[in-house]
């Protein structure tokens, strides 16, 4: 499927002779090559989980966060080019803030995502800029695991552990060694505020994830 887009890939307002827009394809590749980010909506809230690859041992723990706070009730988890994601998070923050300033209440999420989507679309339309290299990503393995869950019946606390487990499952030990698990949630458990999951809950979730993986490894060996 890969072609050399020489000459036709300089801007998002150019079609190649076979009708492809290479700049948009490149942007999507940036996301595909990125590590996993997932979000699960449960009975009483939403949980985000990100497989944050640690590219160097020199990075401090917790640096290069991929989950952003947009407003007190809104969070954003990203896959793709982190620099583009940071820029978009600023846009989202300004939209949420000016909405509150003009209308006196929390911005409805659908409206915020419409506004950010319009902004991203504008950057795709206008030839003077390049498209943003980030979007919602769905790795197939993660998708399969998520489909197994009964999300509507589970609470945030239960889902946090499942999210950790899914991230650990999709993490490829061979390709990328070290990773940090970033977890955040918003819902009844946090009184409607979007927050990073507290340390003790995160550690419990990671322990559950690691234990579940070991169990599955063991059961695989028995079948041999």
């Amino acid at each position, binding site marked *: 499927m890969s072609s050399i887009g020489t000459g036709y890939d300089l801007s998002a307002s150019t079609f190649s002779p076979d009708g492809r827009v290479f700049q948009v394809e490149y942007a999507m590749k940036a996301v595909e090559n990125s590590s996993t980010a997932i979000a699960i909506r449960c009975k009483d809230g939403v949980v985000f989980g990100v497989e944050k690859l640690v590219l160097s041992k020199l990075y401090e723990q917790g640096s290069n966060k991929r989950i952003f706070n947009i407003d007190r009730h809104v969070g954003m988890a990203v896959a793709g080019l982190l620099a583009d994601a940071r820029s978009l998070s600023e846009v989202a923050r300004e939209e949420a803030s000016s909405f509150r300033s003009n*209308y*006196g*209440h929390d911005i*409805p999420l*659908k*409206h915020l995502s419409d506004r950010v989507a319009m902004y991203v679309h504008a950057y795709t339309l206008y030839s003077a800029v390049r498209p943003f290299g980030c979007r919602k990503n769905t790795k197939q393995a993660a998708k399969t695991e998520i489909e197994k869950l009964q999300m509507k019946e589970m609470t945030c606390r239960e889902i946090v552990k499942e999210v950790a487990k899914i991230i650990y499952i999709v993490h490829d030990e061979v390709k990328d060694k070290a990773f940090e698990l970033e977890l955040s949630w918003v819902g009844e458990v946090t009184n409607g505020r979007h927050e990073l999951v507290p340390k003790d809950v995160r550690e419990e979730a990671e322990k559950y994830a690691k234990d579940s993986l070991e169990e599955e490894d063991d059961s695989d060996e028995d079948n041999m």
Partner: protein
Amino acid sequence: MLEETGPEWLSEEVKTGTTIIAIEFNGGVVLGSDSRVSAGDSVVNRVMNKLSPLHDKIYCALSGSAADAQTIAEMVNYQLHVHSLEIDEDPQVRSAATLVFATLNGLLTRQPFAVGGSGSSYVYGFVDAEYRKGMNKEECQQFVVNTLSLAMNRDGSSGGVAYIVSIDEHGTEEKVILGNDLPTFFDQ
């Protein structure tokens, strides 16, 4: 020689004198106003409806400069219309108030009832004494009508007819009570 400035009422700002009142009950609100618009000593409109819609179920009671109040109400009506299309929902009263506040500045607060306009001074005692928590819609309407009637009787800049708007989950109801149908009190 001093230049003739003509009669005062030609050069004075057109004010709405006014008595306005709003009260909330469990399930809705009732707003009321008089209908007099004065320019100095002259009544230039005796039947103006000072209860202005900002949205289907959000109304605004006007007082002060007639032109300024109407303009702001129309501007906010437009802004709320666009806003409700964007969020695909009915706008909140809080949003309407914030939009007005953004233009006028001042105090934005929520309270069980409020009175305003030149006629309000004459009825603070009445509303403070007669207000009770937990009134239903009909009792609120009666409270509003009584207050307006008393104020219109004493304030020279308030008078005419009484306009009442009642808003609840079922919808918005506009009513007019003509001068001689208003309740009478001592001295009438």
